[in-house]
């Protein structure tokens, strides 16, 4: 089974919020220099799932990313975990790409890689949390798509998928090739390994330009104009304390319910 895993290099989501600011134009989040970048956590789940499928059924795992050259570190994390190949699409010419733009470019790169049976993504990236790229890739490649997948079983030329819903989970069978976005319930990503680190040291990860994969930058940006970012700001968190009283516990409970209803909490 040949698997492509899409990964994004993001500022460490575990860094405290005080380490982030918004630029003066209100368009961009700026992490402090001390904030390191990591593979978006759900994407690590996707790498792990890909490696487990490869170990069970053979084939190979290719990790793919769109971003600046520093995103090579995210790909190296994948190969150090055990991925066979890696490809970076260098997107230096692009402004912070909209998810539709990213999906358009990654789909072109996946088409160039070719021979895929399965495309895995994290359910959403830890920086913008939009969760749009996976379905965008499926749309661009005209493939079936299942989101928020928490379990994968292999069948003959198909997969049995469990995906989370608000009140439980659904089980469905999908034919290959397919695009899946995975959630963290599916596995615990493995650590890197000594062998993976050694192999990565001697690996030359190819860096493709947009031209290499037949993408017109202007057209790619244009397809992302479905939404416009008006203004970005860090919300102010206000905490107010209200004591809800009552002569008896029953009265206090009733008062509390009334307050919660009037605040539209329940």
């Amino acid at each position, binding site marked *: 089974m040949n698997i492509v895993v899409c990964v994004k290099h993001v500022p460490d989501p575990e860094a405290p919020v005080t380490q982030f600011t918004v630029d003066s134009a209100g368009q961009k989040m700026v992490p402090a220099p001390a904030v390191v970048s990591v593979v978006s956590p759900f994407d690590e789940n996707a790498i792990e799932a890909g490696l487990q499928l490869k170990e069970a059924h053979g084939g190979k795992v290719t990790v793919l990313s769109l971003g600046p050259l520093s995103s090579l570190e995210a790909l*190296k994390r994948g190969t*150090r975990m055990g991925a066979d190949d890696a490809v970076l699409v260098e997107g230096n010419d692009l402004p912070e790409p909209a998810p539709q733009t990213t999906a358009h470019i990654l789909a072109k790169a996946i088409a160039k890689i070719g021979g895929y049976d399965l495309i895995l993504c994290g359910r959403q990236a830890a920086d913008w949390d939009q969760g749009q790229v996976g379905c965008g890739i499926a749309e661009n490649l005209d493939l079936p798509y299942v989101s928020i997948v928490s379990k994968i079983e292999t069948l003959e030329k198909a997969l049995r998928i469990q995906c989370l819903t608000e009140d439980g989970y659904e089980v469905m069978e999908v034919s290959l090739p397919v695009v899946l976005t995975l959630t963290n319930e599916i596995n615990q990503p*493995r*650590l*890197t*390994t*000594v*062998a993976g*680190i*050694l192999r*990565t*040291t001697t690996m030359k990860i190819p860096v493709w330009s947009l031209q290499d994969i037949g993408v017109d930058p202007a057209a790619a940006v244009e397809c992302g104009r479905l939404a416009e970012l008006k203004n970005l700001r860090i919300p102010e968190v206000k905490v107010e304390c209200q004591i809800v009283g009552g002569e008896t516990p029953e009265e206090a409970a009733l008062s509390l319910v009334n307050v919660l209803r009037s605040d539209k909490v329940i």
Partner: protein
Amino acid sequence: MMDEFELTDQQKAFQTLAREFAERHIKPIAAEIDRMEVKMGLPNFPWDMLREAHKIGLKTIAFPMEYGGMAADHLTQVIITDELAYVDATCAKTISQCWKQPQYIIHFGTKDQRDRFLGAMRDEPTYMMAGAITEPDYGSDNMLPYEEPEGGLKLSVKRKGDGYVLNGVKHFIALGGAASLYIVRGRTDKTVSVRKGTGRFLVPKDTPGFSVTAQHDKIGFRAYPNGQLAFEDVYVPKENLLGGKENYDMSGGPLAGWNELELAATAMGIARAAFEAALDYAKQRVQGGKTIIEHQAVAGLLADMYMDLQAGRSLVWQTARIFSSGRRDTKMSMASARFATKVVLKITTDALTIFGGMGVMKELPLEKYVRDTMIFTHLADGPARQVKAGNLLMRPE
């Protein structure tokens, strides 16, 4: 976190691996295995941690490629050990012992011995080796081997048929009771000094006549076993005489300085953990209306701790760099071990001071850092190493 040293991409990757391994597989068990009773059967030994280390290749990283490793150099070993010891020194020592003891077989063993025993280390997740040298009446003599034939090591070796029969007792043996193979040093020629008149015998744990008779209960490194071994007419076939040589003088060889760098790296990992804990606490603890780091006495103490920590790390890492380049400068490795021992003792006890009453409470790891440090000053390091370091300086350049 301190990354002042310029590391290669690969070294940084190993540092990250060790940090994440320690966080996932050592941190959750460190306090528990320290507090468990030490007894025969080793209920507090971190077997699962060892299996995980084997799974990712950490256990054999210092081995040649053909035996599942990458012949990791000393700087890489120091980087990894520092990260592991930062979380728990006993687990760090368990892993680094897996790198060190097999070096005898890697460098001095026959091809058959390498295939049999290094192959087992590579293939069996919990297979480890222990070096059995120290005896109840032979401790610092190991560090300072006297030239008198009557001095030191007593374990007797008698030739019998195509092999040897061992009789005697070893104690304080690291990984004793946990290891699968014991590299036992015994007297083969009583007419010359210990250095010249001893050989090493490879004794699997299930050899008839061999037994582990006690586990030493220590104040620190509690989950790292030190066992007492008994040899009663233990027959060792000649195939298990290390390198096939009865009298094997290994001093000054490829293992020179290995012990000292291992000790120094482990000590500096503990020192860093104690310093960072003290610094965090001093920034949070309020006394007299301000954080205690704003009090000059505490700030000064922390400044000196930082100075010692950086001086120690600089010396140890620089020494590892020298060894990695192929120059085994044993004066530097001795200096590293001695200095790291002093630094870790000072930093851990100063950290206790900064924590005040909380420092001696078992709910925090500070008191464990101090207990673990006592092993360096009394069991692993001490006056013998100081004298040996002095002897090295006497030698002509």
